[in-house]
């Protein structure tokens, strides 16, 4: 404990007074995510977090190598993804990657990494198929899939006494996937789905859908999608007088969601894989360091995963040296690795069998862990009818 | 009263020279006509005067002001008005709005109202149809409107391009009478026409254009007898 604290003080000191060490070999890593376009806030958050991890590591005198990060933009388009993945994977000086937020892109690129033998850790894409649809030893994933998340979500919400759901999801792979798994687990646990509404990801106006939902009168509106749509839908619910609990997925666990909604965000429930950041000492440190860097964009929900993925990769390199095959084997064998998102253990498909899904709720303008909230104690109600 | 002097004007249009060193003088207070058959260069001359097709060489002076190089709306602001060929009324505007467009440069509301009343007095038909869309009127009515619109700005110099085009002789006569009355009121007129006899009947002086050059000029009475005039039409 003391050693850790000392290290972090040292690290902070070095961050302030950067010293270049000439003795170390340079090892290149690649980060890939959407840096332009509609998903760029998540991409930029992931990139900044990865960059932060590399900076911290380079500042660590004990590190064997000096790390250099190459960041590439996949634009959240599969064809561009394949392009930059090929660029990274065929660049022999790059040892490993922290890759992809968008599931379509992650799906499109797995073959490329496998073909060229670049070990990567997926930091944000949540579609189960990314790890489970093939058996490539190069592909790992640190964040959980939407399966884990939705199983917990369905059980938890039914246990709270809700029975009737309306589901809105965007028609991206993310939204459709969430819809699929949530619906599956919900019906299995005794919930009832009154209606399902697919909406496009660039849609502004949801009044027609919400009017329909209002007519159906659900207890809960489940939303499978990301922050921009989440903010819009939640706002428009109030506009139309739709009174229901708003339940989201990891896609809306962001500062932007709370900032975007202000008071209306109160009582929104969402679920995210990984341990709650603020409960782990590393997590809190991450947030402090991130804030110190004064990035233009917040880390967003998956920034910590990117940070953890980068550390996982660098730890592996520290152990086995900058060799793709060795790094791959080291990553494959990850077990009980302590990270800021909790313990990481890869299963037979190199999927992090995340033990914990964090339940979150917005209270007083902050996402907080359900168990710590006034809602859990019954002091407040999710929705006033 | 104001005069218009065109000196050695050469204008190229669509890569073919259509005016070759044309000089003419529209004297103050007079009606000066320019005659010539189709394609003689009359319209190009008007376009040059109005600044729509900038000339290559030469100068155009309205009173003391050089017009070449000025944008059309500034030329018009000097007191020039034009009744364009083919009438060119704004088809989807009412008669009243067309007339108001003619008075665009006039700021004083009273002046506009006076002009409007005057035009309505001159062309009672326009008053009857004040709210009708110009595009739905007959050719003759459009011609009246076009003339009325040209008068709305109370110009010092009026340039009229083929007012008889496509009009029956009766209408032509009426319109020419209006032009003469306008001129009597002190407005200099530059009248471009192919209708020789009626034009010369109301003009003081005239020029005959053929293939981009002035082939004859002089007082109207003299010009009437000039064989060049007939030749300009019938070869």
């Amino acid at each position, binding site marked *: 404990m003391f050693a850790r604290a000392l290290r972090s003080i040292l690290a902070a000191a070095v961050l302030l007074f950067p010293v270049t060490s000439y003795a170390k070999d340079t090892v290149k890593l690649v980060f890939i995510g959407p840096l332009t376009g509609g998903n760029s806030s998540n991409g930029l958050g992931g990139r900044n977090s990865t960059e932060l991890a590399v900076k911290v590591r380079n500042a660590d005198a004990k590190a064997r190598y000096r790390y250099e990060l190459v960041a590439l*933009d996949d634009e959240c388009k599969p*064809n561009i993804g394949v392009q930059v993945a090929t660029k990274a994977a*065929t660049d022999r000086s790059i040892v490993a990657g922290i890759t992809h937020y968008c599931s379509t892109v992650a*799906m499109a690129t797995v073959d490329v990494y496998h073909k060229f033998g670049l070990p990567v850790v997926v930091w944000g894409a949540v579609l189960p198929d990314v790890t489970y649809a093939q058996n490539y030893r190069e592909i790992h994933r640190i964040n959980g899939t939407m399966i884990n998340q939705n199983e917990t979500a369905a059980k938890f919400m039914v246990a709270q006494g809700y029975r009737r759901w309306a589901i809105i999801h965007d*028609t991206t792979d993310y*939204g459709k996937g969430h819809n699929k798994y949530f619906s599956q687990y919900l019906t299995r646990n005794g919930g009832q789905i009154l209606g399902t509404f697919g909406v496009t990801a660039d849609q502004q106006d949801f009044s027609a859908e919400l009017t329909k939902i209002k007519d159906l009168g659900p207890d809960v509106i489940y939303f499978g999608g990301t922050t921009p749509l989440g903010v819009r839908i939640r706002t428009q619910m109030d506009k139309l007088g739709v009174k229901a609990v708003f339940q989201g997925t990891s896609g809306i666990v962001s500062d932007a969601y709370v900032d975007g909604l202000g008071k209306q965000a109160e009582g929104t429930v969402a679920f995210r894989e990984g341990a709650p950041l603020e409960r782990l000492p590393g997590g809190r440190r991450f947030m402090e360091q991130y804030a110190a860097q004064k990035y233009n964009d917040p880390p967003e929900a998956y920034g910590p995963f990117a940070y953890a993925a980068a550390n996982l990769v660098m730890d592996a390199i520290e152990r086995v040296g900058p060799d793709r095959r060795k790094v791959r084997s080291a990553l494959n064998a990850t077990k009980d690795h302590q990270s800021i998102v909790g313990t990481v253990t890869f299963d037979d498909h190199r999927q992090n069998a995340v033990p914990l899904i964090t339940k979150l709720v917005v209270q007083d303008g902050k996402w907080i862990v359900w168990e710590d909230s006034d809602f859990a104690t019954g002091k407040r109600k999710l929705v006033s009818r | 009263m104001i005069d218009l002097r065109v000196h050695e004007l050469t204008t190229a249009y669509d890569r073919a020279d259509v005016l070759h060193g044309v000089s003419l003088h529209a004297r103050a207070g007079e009606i000066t006509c320019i005659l010539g058959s189709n394609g003689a260069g009359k319209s190009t001359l008007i376009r040059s005067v109005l600044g729509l097709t900038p000339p290559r060489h030469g100068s155009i002076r309205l009173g003391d002001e050089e017009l070449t190089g000025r944008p059309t709306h500034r030329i018009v602001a000097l007191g020039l008005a034009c009744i364009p060929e083919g009438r060119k009324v704004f088809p989807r505007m009412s008669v009243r709005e067309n007339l108001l467009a003619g008075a665009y440069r006039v700021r004083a509301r009273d002046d506009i109202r006076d002009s409007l009343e005057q035009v309505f007095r001159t062309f009672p038909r326009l008053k009857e149809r004040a709210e009708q869309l110009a595009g739905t009127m007959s050719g003759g009515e459009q011609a009246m409107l076009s003339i009325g619109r040209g008068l709305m700005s109370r110009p010092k110099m009026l340039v009229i391009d083929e007012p008889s085009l496509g009009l029956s002789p009766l209408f032509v006569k009426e319109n020419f009478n209006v032009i003469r009355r306008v001129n009597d009121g002190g407005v200099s007129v530059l009248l471009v026409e192919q209708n020789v006899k009626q034009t010369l009947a109301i003009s003081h002086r005239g020029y005959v254009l053929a293939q981009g050059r002035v082939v004859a000029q002089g007082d109207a009475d003299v010009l009437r007898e000039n064989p060049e005039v007939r030749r300009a039409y019938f070869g």
Partner: protein
Amino acid sequence: MRKIFRPAPVWPALLLLPLLGGYGYVFLHAEAQWQVAILALAGVAAILAAGSRRVGAALDRSWRAAPSLLGWLAFVVAAALIYVLREDHFALLMVATVLLYALVCLGLNVQFGYAGVLNFAGAAFFGIGGYTAAVLAAHTALPHLVILASAGLLSGVVGSLLVLPLLRTRGHYAALITIAFAILFRTFLEVNDLLGGPQGLKVPGLAILGWSFNDSIVVDADTEFSFYVAYAGFSLVLFTIGLILVWRLERSWLGLSLDAVRIDETAASVFGFQVARWKILAFSLGNVLAGVAGAVYGMMTGFVAPASFTLAESLIFVSIVILGGLGNPAAVLPATVLVVVLPEKLQFIQEYRYLLFSAIVILILLFKPAGLLPRSLRRYFPSWGKA
């Protein structure tokens, strides 16, 4: 004939071609900012020079002196570039991408460069090709060449659904139809799960006559060529065929007819041209080319998804055609390089690259409104016209 024909010097073009090849090699390998900047500037300067009178005329003369020799040489240089890059997967992927995008733009060039039929749904037809390949290659045993042909055909057939409204409308009204189709196509794919929905579909690799393109080419134990060599080579062949096709089209009565219809529909109809027929021909041909290119592209990248075939992508195709020079098929290639490779080369400025890219396009449009290499007069044969 009073004029004495002197054989024009062949050397300018002869020299240029290997130079271009070398440039391509260096450009594809440039990573550092200053390298990219210098190379991009040099490239633009070279294109502008080629568009200028003197240099252009010199190149033109030498081209006419030995058209077939230089044509072959161009192909050989391109093939050589692919060979030199044989182990560089990424560079080859970019080469193949450029060639396939250029093939689509050849089609668009026929559509609005010649016939004047605007198409803002180029990416949709490109996508139709890709999806056709995905479905047919995965679920049927059809030979892949047949699949490529069907992809082109289907793209043409779907396009013919738009023909009626397109023929009836003009200008911006016609533009709206293809824009609406582009949006509709993408949304339909995404909402509908039939074709993989938003996740898209995996596409098996191309295999022709039993040769699987997705396998690396093993020469001996130590030497292994990237499998992209096959794709790049195949794309080169396709693009060459497309270029020759479009070239011949332009240099024939067909091209003349399309021009006549575009420039003055009224005059054309007075001289007996069936306006609709020519517009349909151009529209369909363009879509077929886009479809074939899309099929190969899908098989090469191994994946098709709606996100790759958006209206924004269509607009990228349109901008390539306009930047290159409307109606000049050869200009498609440098313009594609500019539009496809430059943003990739600008990766080092990461999130700022689209800002810079858009600014560059605005500048080109302001100062070279006819495109980088404007179209020249029709020349039915290399020896056609005055010496």
